[in-house]
């Protein structure tokens, strides 16, 4: 049994490399990412599972990092926005979000892109309805969603043309 008493070291396979964090019981994956590992793309939003701004990938599944005690991610692959691309080498989704003005304040963007990546990994050529369903857990209060959905459609096209990685 994995019992966590007081603080414990948790090892994650984070964005392709092993990382250790020291966490108190019930410390969430979100807190570990932002406050211990200083990866700030993943956002702290509602803390209730309602907004999706903390969305990351755990192995190949989409999870809300604000609701997941980090102990439960021990030994598993965690992928955040920083892990799929950065300023020097953007992921096609990041390029498409930029080109379509799909980010305004940017608070939802990391979660949106992670949900979109999860969708495109399983379904490289989604319909508009499938994109809407995949992003249903991610709230955006700026864009009205249309540019976000268009960016995901465009990223799918770019990736299927072999421009993606």
């Amino acid at each position, binding site marked *: *049994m*994995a*019992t*966590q*008493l*007081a603080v414990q070291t948790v090892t994650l396979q984070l964005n392709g490399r092993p990382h250790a964090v020291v966490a*108190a*019981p*019930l*410390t*969430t994956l979100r807190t570990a990412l932002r406050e211990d590992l200083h990866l700030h793309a993943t956002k702290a939003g509602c*803390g*209730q*599972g*309602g907004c*999706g701004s903390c*969305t990351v990938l*755990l192995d190949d*599944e*989409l*999870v*809300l990092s*604000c*609701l*997941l*005690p980090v*102990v*439960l991610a021990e030994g598993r692959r965690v992928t955040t926005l920083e892990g799929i691309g950065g300023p020097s080498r953007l992921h096609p989704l990041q390029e498409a979000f930029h080109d379509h003005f799909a980010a305004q304040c940017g608070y939802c963007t990391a979660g949106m892109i992670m*949900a979109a990546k*999860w969708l495109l990994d399983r379904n490289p050529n989604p319909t508009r309805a499938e994109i*809407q*369903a*995949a*992003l*249903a*857990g*991610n*709230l955006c209060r700026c864009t009205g969603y249309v540019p976000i959905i268009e960016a995901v459609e465009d990223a799918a096209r770019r990736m299927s043309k072999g421009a993606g990685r």
Partner: protein
Amino acid sequence: MSTTAFFVPRTVDEAIELKREHGKNLVVMGGGTIVMGLVHDGQLFPKLAMSLARAGMSDVRRRDGQFEIGAATPVARLTELKGAATLDRAAGMLGGPALRTLATAGGNLFAKAPYGDLCVPLLAMDAEVEIAGTEGRRTAPLEQFLSRRALKNDELVVSIRVPKPRGRGAYLKLGRRQANTPSVVAVAVQVVLDGTGKCTDVRIALGAAAPQAVRAKKAEAALTGRRLDAASISAAAQAAQAECNPATDSLASAWYRREMVGVFVRRALDEVGRTI
């Protein structure tokens, strides 16, 4: 944070032993989507907490059309479950994909209105709850379990048993958005007709229409022995409206919920009627 221990048992027996040892001091979570939200909201300060996510009860077993759904089965898995009437539909309308990865079937039984939508189709299918403790296992009808959610100090919900669905079903949910929303109301119906088109067995269940999901028994009685037609469906919708006990919250007023119970019971029965 003042939580001094977080237990992640690997078997049901370990989980029961921890529950026996710590009793009411132990806050139990399935996927954590309810408990962690309450913790963040400052409504819950668990001294001790336990997750059932790794306790080996995340399987769905199917035998002769019946289902045994492990309490820690992710809601995401239920969205793909064929042959369990409208349960897949209700699961797919619960939260968003990332929430459904974490949220569990058993945890949803503890969600208070306007959450807990899985209970609505489960009530319409006469599901039972399997409870395990140090003395052994027992089952309780879901309806009875939901009325008090009474567990002894050493007991845990370990599975949900769903009988083979009978007749035709429908599930409808009204929220304030098209997706990722708690319910204004949720309605599941399951109707069995005889050879002459009369309803012999009717189950109507309502979500967000009382503190927990409930059967609308007067509405069921209004249909039983009658044909599914405009008059009988109207009578059932009116009965459901009269017998429900919804709350006012930030999503909807009690008055509006009661109106929508009538509308959505009617629509669900119309949908069943159209498939005959």
